[in-house]
């Protein structure tokens, strides 16, 4: 039976999921679930953690320990789980509004702290679940339900921010480049430290419709035609207006729990 993927999913009465037809989150979930199973991880070694939003509904469909927390708080919640079970793989999956607006502070500090976790940031440029309001990644001038005349604010680059905060692995892909995305998620899981994979994703029902980007297919064609890989960027102007995909940053740094173990050893020595 080639529907082996269902071994990794909670199928009974859970599928089809609540996401819209053509939603990029579904494709990202597809890539994530395959990446996890191809990583050789046992189901009982994983905890998938999310916040609130369309992207955060993903854990409910995955067959492992799943933790659907408060808006913006997936990362600190995952921190608690990981410290209690350092051998479990914690994968955080959440959206742009959840991770970067209300959860922005936790995002920055987790990158700085470098506790081992994989964060999959699904960026569909708006708050989908609540109807399409603008988020920290909505580009200036684009329409949203709370920006009917065009977004006043500038957006920022979550990947640059994560790198600046100290993330050891930062990568980006899109829901068009699904095999590439699957590979990046596998790399991120393998990395010992804070690993971020940003997934540019289509929201055809809201962001796409409000900005006349066409249906899911049209939006995916846009991602295909406007993406450029890291190696193709020879000078900064090559990347202007483009989505840069690939591994943007890969470095080494001491992982939080490894340092904490040394603290425990020291404390126990002093205690004797």
């Amino acid at each position, binding site marked *: 039976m*080639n*529907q082996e*993927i*269902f*071994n990794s*999913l*909670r*199928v*009974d009465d859970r*599928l*089809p*999921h609540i*996401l*819209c*037809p*053509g*939603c*990029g*989150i*579904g*494709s990202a*979930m*597809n*890539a994530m679930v*395959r990446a996890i199973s191809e990583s050789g991880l046992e189901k009982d070694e994983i905890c998938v953690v999310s916040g609130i939003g369309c992207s955060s509904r993903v854990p409910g469909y995955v*067959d492992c320990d799943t933790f659907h927390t408060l808006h913006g708080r997936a990362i600190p919640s995952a921190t608690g789980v990981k410290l209690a079970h350092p051998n479990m793989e914690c994968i955080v999956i959440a959206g742009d509004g959840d991770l970067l607006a209300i959860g922005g502070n936790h995002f920055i500090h987790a990158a700085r702290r470098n506790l081992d976790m994989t964060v999959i940031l699904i960026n569909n440029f708006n708050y989908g679940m609540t109807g399409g309001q603008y988020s920290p990644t909505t580009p200036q001038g684009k329409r949203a339900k709370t920006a009917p005349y065009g977004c006043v604010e500038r957006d920022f680059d979550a990947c640059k921010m994560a790198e600046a905060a100290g993330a050891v692995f930062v990568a980006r892909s899109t*829901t*068009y480049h*699904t*095999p590439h995305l*699957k590979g990046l998620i596998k790399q991120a899981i393998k990395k010992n430290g804070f690993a971020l994979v940003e997934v540019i994703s289509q929201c055809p029902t809201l962001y796409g419709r409000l900005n006349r980007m066409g*249906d*899911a*297919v049209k939006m*995916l*064609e846009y991602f295909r035609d406007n993406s450029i890989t890291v190696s193709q960027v020879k000078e900064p102007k090559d990347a202007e207006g483009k989505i840069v995909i690939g591994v943007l940053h890969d470095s080494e740094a001491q992982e939080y729990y490894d340092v904490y173990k040394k603290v425990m050893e020291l404390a126990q020595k002093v205690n004797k």
Partner: protein
Amino acid sequence: MKKSYPKPVEYKAKSGIEIHVIKEFCKGCGICVEFCPKDVLNLGNDLKVNAPNIEACNGDALCELRCPDFAIFVKKLKKNK
């Protein structure tokens, strides 16, 4: 946990490649149809995907990987990798 899901509709090519579609999960988004390099698929009258051109399928399974709803699966030839 028991894994029960609706029975897929199977499209079989002479080569042995098969495409299985779980119609209950398909939401008719058209992503698999539009990005199939071999134009194997289309949306039927029920607005769900089917595979009228199954013979042209090369088994790349991009549709299976892209599908947001786990509705389409490709059973490749029994060659081992």
